[in-house]
């Protein structure tokens, strides 16, 4: 039952073949069986999930019309607030905090009767590409437990690959949905910036952060995308326009006559051989499905990484100032006579991990008087150049494509002491966030040399998210007929797995 896709689960629920309580219990059992090894979850809400499942079953029995994903379980990244449920963002500074309100994403999940199983592990405040920066210990990649599951949303992606949940929510600031999807053989979508509300998404870099769906196939991602997307008056950066028709696009999967642009700069040197092979093969399959493959150039993408590592730390140094030990979260050193400033200093020393401190200090420097123009100001100009590159490329192509990551999953600990090597992971995903466009990663097979999953990235213009779903569905169908079964059916079994 847990190996089905979310849409298969939904139709079995609708036909009465299974109940949401049984389905939810099956996933809770799988979490009990394998999460000691995977560590995808920071908190499991057994009681809440089962109670909600029972309520959905009762609604269905009474004949109420339910949403397409009603009764299907989901894993929620621990960066989204859910009323009364611990929300840590993978940080000690928020340990034990139970938010007094729901994020809009959670409100939308509840409206759709989707069952939230619990909160998933992540790099602290979403800063990282491996989930090793979580204050609560790393998540392990279900394909090989000695390897990273990507990050920052490693917990959400791993929960899908370990069959602990059929759906998950991630957030993507520089690739935190797409890179974990790529290295775990799952699907992850970063919608157009403003497509999904950021209300209740604990901010890292406000002009780049975007929540989106994680799933095991393209249609499931589309169904979840439609459930969470839409205008929200509580988020002033939320786009007030209809949600792109992503479910229809995922169902049709038609790419006949579509122009698919291969970004010259996001391939070649620095990309693992097996990654390049799978990418070329996917292009051939898309061409065979009727798409026209063209080459496009984006000369300024080579500056994207440098710009990102100025813009994101600058915004984070400002956003994380809210963790001041005054209104919620950790407070250290509040002895008689201690000043507020010393309490802040001590709390932030103990509460923040190494990478978070590194980025706050870097951002403080990039924004400081005398250095602002050289660093933050220049990075903002690069952002303009990247957006212009995208605009030009989209004149020649309907969507753009690249490998999602330069390599497959690396070993836990391998890059932990080399921040620059770690940052390079995001080289192909970051330009999308800089321009605020949509991006998807879906599995394109495994690399021959190590047998680990490889991701294929599709990028679509602002609010044309449906296009990446059309291309994703077409490629997925072509790969499925080649393989005969989904990629995840070949994942090694975890000890104790149901």
């Amino acid at each position: 039952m847990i190996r089905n896709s979310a849409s298969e689960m939904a139709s079995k629920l609708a036909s009465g073949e299974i109940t949401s309580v049984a389905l939810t219990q099956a996933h809770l059992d799988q979490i009990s069986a394998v999460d000691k090894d995977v560590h995808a979850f920071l908190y499991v809400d057994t009681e809440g999930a089962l109670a909600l499942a029972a309520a959905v079953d009762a609604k269905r029995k009474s004949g109420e019309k339910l949403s397409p994903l009603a009764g299907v379980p989901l894993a929620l990244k621990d960066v989204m607030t859910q009323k009364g449920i611990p929300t840590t963002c993978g940080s000690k500074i928020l340990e034990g905090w139970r938010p007094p309100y729901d994020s809009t994403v959670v409100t939308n999940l509840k409206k759709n009767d989707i069952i939230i199983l619990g909160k998933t592990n992540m790099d602290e405040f979403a800063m990282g590409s491996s989930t090793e920066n979580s204050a609560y210990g790393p998540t392990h990649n279900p394909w090989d437990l000695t390897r990273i599951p990507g990050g920052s949303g490693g917990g959400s992606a791993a929960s899908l690959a370990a069959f602990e949940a059929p759906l998950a929510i991630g957030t993507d600031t520089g690739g935190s949905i797409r890179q974990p999807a790529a290295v775990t053989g799952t699907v992850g979508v970063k919608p157009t910036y403003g497509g999904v509300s950021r209300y209740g998404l604990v901010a890292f870099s406000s002009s780049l952060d975007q929540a989106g769906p994680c799933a095991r196939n393209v249609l499931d991602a589309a169904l979840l995308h439609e459930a969470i997307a839409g205008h929200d008056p509580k988020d002033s950066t939320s786009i007030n326009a209809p949600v792109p028709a992503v479910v229809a696009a995922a169902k049709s999967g038609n790419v006949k006559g579509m122009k698919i642009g291969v970004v010259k700069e996001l391939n070649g040197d620095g990309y693992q051989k097996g990654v390049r092979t799978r990418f070329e093969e996917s292009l051939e399959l898309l061409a065979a499905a009727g798409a026209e493959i063209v080459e496009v150039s984006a000369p300024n993408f080579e500056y994207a990484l440098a710009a990102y590592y100025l813009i994101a730390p600058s915004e984070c140094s400002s956003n994380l100032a809210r963790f001041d030990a005054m209104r919620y979260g950790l407070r250290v050193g509040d002895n008689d006579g201690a000043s507020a400033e010393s309490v802040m200093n001590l709390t932030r020393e103990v509460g923040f991990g190494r990478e978070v401190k590194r980025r706050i200090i870097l951002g403080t420097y990039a924004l400081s008087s005398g250095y602002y123009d050289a660093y933050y100001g220049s990075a903002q100009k690069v952002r303009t150049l990247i957006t212009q590159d995208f605009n030009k490329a989209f004149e020649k192509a309907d969507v753009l494509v690249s490998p999602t990551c330069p390599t497959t999953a690396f070993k836990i600990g391998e890059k932990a002491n080399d921040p620059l090597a770690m940052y390079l992971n995001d080289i192909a995903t970051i330009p999308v966030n800089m321009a605020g466009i949509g991006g998807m990663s879906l599995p394109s097979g495994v690399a021959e040399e190590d047998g680990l999953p490889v991701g294929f990235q599709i990028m679509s213009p602002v609010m044309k998210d449906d296009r990446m779903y059309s291309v994703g569905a077409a490629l997925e169908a072509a790969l499925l007929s080649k393989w005969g079964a989904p990629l995840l059916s070949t994942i090694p079994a975890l000890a104790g797995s149901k």
Partner: protein
Amino acid sequence: MTSLSRDDVAKLAGLARIEMSDEELVALSNEFTVILDAVARVQEVAGADVAATSHPLPLRNVFRPDVVIPSLSPADALSGAPAQEEQRFRVPQILGEE
């Protein structure tokens, strides 16, 4: 090559309100030499003729209707407070006592 000394990092840590051990300051100062070198590349293409982009959406003055909607109760708002007193957040002293 740009570099930040241990004392530069200490000043920034002070501005960012993070207490740091000497060991941490030295480690960060070494890392920043490498990181700043890498990020300084943005200056190669950031000419005076290029406009800055601060945000992907060209938005200004976004309003919503001015209607009263329910907000957090005092109990909810204080539910995460490290310390509270008389329905208020209790915080360490901000100004020196006279």
